[in-house]
């Protein structure tokens, strides 16, 4: 247990407004250095030397980049750039790079947004992608409230992609995350034994218990009728407060 980290992303730090008190690579524990980490990731995914790589490798890199972009439906592209190219207030703290997004709906010439301007959901998507796809991310990592700021459908889609990304690029890496958003668990393919869901709750003595939601035949039958999100909301999976 030497190579692990627990992340708690924070919107202001993801934007680069505030410095990360726990800087690290590829990203800080609170989400600092996101633009630099995306730059490194995109270089790895997209900048293959034609002589040193196969078409299959180049296609796989493009597929992963496309996977990320599909989760930000308004963005035509994401491209980290050096901070000096952008008009930013001197009061804005900045790293060496800023994220530049191209908005597909805005007019050419006025369709560039930086990480300081975009909706925070896009930043959380990139943050999760970096942790799953960057070789320098720890072998065991945890993210507190991965679903922050995400639309329910986006949260489901992002959760689906996490397993795909990990299996594609880092099959030995283990990701633990907490969520309070039912839509997230609809994205878990629990038919795959490597993907596991645990209900964390307190018993009548106040002790915290952690129980794996096993796809038993009974649960399987229920799930034919109800998505996991509804089963959770109805209390059938546990992990709901007594309110």
């Amino acid at each position: 247990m030497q190579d692990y980290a627990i992340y708690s992303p924070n919107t202001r730090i993801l934007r680069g407004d505030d410095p990360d008190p726990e800087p690290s690579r590829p990203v800080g524990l609170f989400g600092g250095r996101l633009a630099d980490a995306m730059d490194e990731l995109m270089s790895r995914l997209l900048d293959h030397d034609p002589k040193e790589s196969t078409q299959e490798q180049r296609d796989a890199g493009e597929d992963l980049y496309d996977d990320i972009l599909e989760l930000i439906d308004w963005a035509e592209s994401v491209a980290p750039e050096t901070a000096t190219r952008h008009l930013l207030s001197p009061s804005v703290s900045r790293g060496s790079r800023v994220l530049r997004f191209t908005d597909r709906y805005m007019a050419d010439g006025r369709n560039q947004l930086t990480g300081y301007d975009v909706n925070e959901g896009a930043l959380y998507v990139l943050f999760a992608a970096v942790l799953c796809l960057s070789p320098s991310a720890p072998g065991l990592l945890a993210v507190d409230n991965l679903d922050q700021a995400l639309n329910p459908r986006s949260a489901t889609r992002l959760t689906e992609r996490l397993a795909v990304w990990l299996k594609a690029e880092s099959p030995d890496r283990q990701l633990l995350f907490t969520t309070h958003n039912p839509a997230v668990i609809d994205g878990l393919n629990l038919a795959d034994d490597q993907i596991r869901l645990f209900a964390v709750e307190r018993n009548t003595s106040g002790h915290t218990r952690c129980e794996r939601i096993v796809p038993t035949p009974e649960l399987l039958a229920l799930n034919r009728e109800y998505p996991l999100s509804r089963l959770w909301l109805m209390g059938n999976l546990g992990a709901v407060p007594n309110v």
Partner: protein
Amino acid sequence: MSSLTIAVVAEEQADQVVIEATLTAMVPGDLRVLRLQPEPTGQLEAGPANATPEVRPQGWCGVFEWCLKYRRGEGGDLEDHPLLTASRPDLLILHLDADVADAKYTYCRKKIVAEAAALGALPCVDPCPPPCPPVQPPADALEIVLRSWLSPTAIGPCTVICIPSKAIDSWVAAALPDDSGIKIEGDIECDPDMPARLEALRGKLAVKRKRVGQYKHKRSSEYRKHATRITAEWSRICERCSQARRFHKDLLSAVEYLGLGGASSR
């Protein structure tokens, strides 16, 4: 003309992108487009061999699952379904690619296979319609199957069925510039290799697909690259693709029914 709300049930995100581009061509003004999807039930069961890693119901199986959810024992029109009352779409579009006529229910997840057995309806009506060309018989057979998925709920005048042949890729191909270099053999709507032909195009015209295991799947961003062209070249697409003409005609009829008028009749 006031802004319309159009709900779309499409096989894939990429299909949704193309359909939205065609709607922009046909219906003037801003549109509110909703993508309707079934709830992701049955995710605890292992998927079929060709499934994408996504948990949500995918492709035509997802459309099938959506239809089962909206089927009502008491019948009535689909657009009057209580689930649609919150968003109140003016129009509803149901999409399937015509090549689904050759598919099998066993491609879907187990839950769907079981439902299909109870329904007794198959995408490819037995005996199968003659293969494309002509375009119409398999598309018509598929439309009958699509209606059977909803039956006894009926498809009302504000619901439009969209069945590109063999797949929506033919509409992308029909919109390409003359010098695109695409090699189409025979009828553009009957070419089963259209995705591969689009993928082989040069530069930014290429519509690449992503590989998942041994299968290739559509990338929505690749179709989005062509969205503006599809809108601009819609009349040309209609000239070349009979199913696009049919979609256009049916959509105009639905808009007329709403009493709004003003849709493009080019």
